[in-house]
């Protein structure tokens, strides 16, 4: 028997009985980062494959959302800071060893590029809005066009963006992968939390993020071919995600005591039901089956598996952020 007690009081919020300083905002931030990465990955990938007219929603329309998604994520990040007035310190230094530092820089670059990407497609976006009967949104495209005609800076930026779209697409493709991986590496850099501290978390968060991206496109696109392709890709991604999850837990089970205890949170511990039944069951396996049935010809509203994947992705991050902080070295 060994018992450890505090002899002197330490009444500090967020440290006991285990560190719990990161909550909902960080989980949502990681989810939004992954979602933006997924949307951008498909947009740039299919642009580079020369399918911008075949898959208009993926390449031209979906990236409209990424800017707002990234900005919302950054706002949540700033909201979660305890010393927010000093936030610009993030951008006056670059520290290669700190995932949060290069993540913040990646987000900044991605937010700028993902703002200009859809602006450079403004004619196609207008045509698309008309095609779907959303003329009411014309004011937005008209506003952008007016700016472009009136002012030299937006005209110059957008013109050059169109001209160099290919190298920019390569850069953005690379950055979207970095962004997706970053959301996982941010957590896996903390060896004080054995649950986070495994190298598969980066690829797992990337896969999950890209899966939410494909679900987003599948949900909002009106193009049957696009939907079908995204549905197939999402099924593959879900399969990879399941493989990574099992791999992660196997790795922890084969590790030292602190890692076994981390795995126990999901294997009989307090996150067992929410992780396996709600996240894996309703967020991965059920949408996988629904997508499979849809591809097999059954009529299933595409919003259903898409929303399940999106909620599952968010839930996965909430679980990982909460459970990770509970997993600590015993001392």
């Amino acid at each position: 028997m060994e018992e450890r007690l505090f002899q002197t009081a330490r009444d500090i919020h967020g440290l006991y009985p285990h560190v719990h300083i990161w909550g909902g905002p960080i989980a949502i931030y990681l989810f939004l980062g992954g979602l933006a990465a997924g949307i951008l990955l498909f947009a740039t990938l299919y642009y580079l494959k020369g399918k911008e007219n075949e898959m208009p929603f993926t390449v031209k329309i979906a990236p409209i959302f990424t800017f707002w998604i990234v900005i919302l994520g950054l706002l949540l990040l700033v909201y979660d800071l305890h010393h927010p007035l000093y936030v610009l310190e993030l951008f006056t230094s670059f520290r290669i060893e700190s995932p949060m530092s290069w993540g913040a820089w990646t987000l900044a670059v991605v937010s700028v590029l993902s703002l200009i990407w859809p602006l450079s497609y403004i004619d196609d976006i207008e045509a698309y809005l008309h095609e779907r009967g959303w003329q009411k949104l014309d004011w937005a495209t008209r506003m952008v066009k007016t700016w472009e005609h009136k002012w030299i800076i937006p005209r110059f930026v957008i013109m050059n963006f169109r001209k160099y779209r290919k190298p920019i697409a390569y850069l953005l493709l690379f950055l979207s992968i970095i962004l997706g991986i970053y959301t996982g590496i941010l957590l896996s850099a903390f060896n004080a939390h054995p649950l986070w501290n495994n190298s598969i978390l980066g690829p797992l968060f990337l896969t999950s993020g890209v899966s939410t991206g494909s679900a987003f496109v599948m949900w909002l696109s009106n193009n049957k071919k696009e939907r079908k392709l995204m549905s197939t890709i999402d099924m593959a991604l879900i399969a990879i995600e399941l493989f990574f999850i099992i791999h992660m837990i196997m790795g922890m089970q084969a590790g030292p005591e602190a890692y076994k205890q981390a795995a126990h949170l999901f294997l009989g511990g307090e996150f067992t039901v929410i992780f396996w039944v709600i996240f894996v069951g309703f967020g991965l396996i059920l949408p996988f089956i629904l997508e499979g049935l849809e591809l097999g010809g059954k009529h299933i509203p595409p919003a259903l598996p898409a929303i399940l994947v999106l909620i599952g992705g968010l839930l996965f991050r909430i679980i990982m952020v909460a459970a990770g902080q509970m997993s600590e070295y015993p001392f």
Partner: protein
Amino acid sequence: MRYAMAIEVNKCVGCGDCVVACQTENNVPMGYSRDWIIEIARGEYPNLFMHFESQRCNHCDDTPCVRTCPTGASHVIEGGIVKVTHDECIGCGACIEACPYDARYFHPDGYVDKCTFCDHRVADGLDPACVSVCPTNCMHFGDLDDPDSEISKLLNSREHYTLLPEAGTAPQIYYLK
């Protein structure tokens, strides 16, 4: 220069003087503390054993807190002392998550605060506040790179352990058995 601390656990009576001295010396806000005492009881009645550990930042050689800091606010100064520059800290909490010893916390003013080994006293050739007030003299502070320092001699001659060496941080608070 490598500052470190050695604490004789069997001489410690758990009085809490080190905690109070630190709070006074460093203006630590109410309810907060940069160091704290843990009472560890082992065994089965009637064969019970107990000792105290005065714990604080371990001023590790391999610092996960400094590594994960996105702005460089967390840094290591001469002598291996880990410090936080308040005006560069954004209060993201990465270092708090990175520390396996729970040595860091959010100061009510927002920035992250922690033990500084009383570097302002050490610079004047004094011991840290906690060491200087210890009524049983169970704490020793000094330079590990100097083979003639009291702490070097103690660590050479006595059995000792550190907290969570398995976390890979190379902690520099030594507990003498």
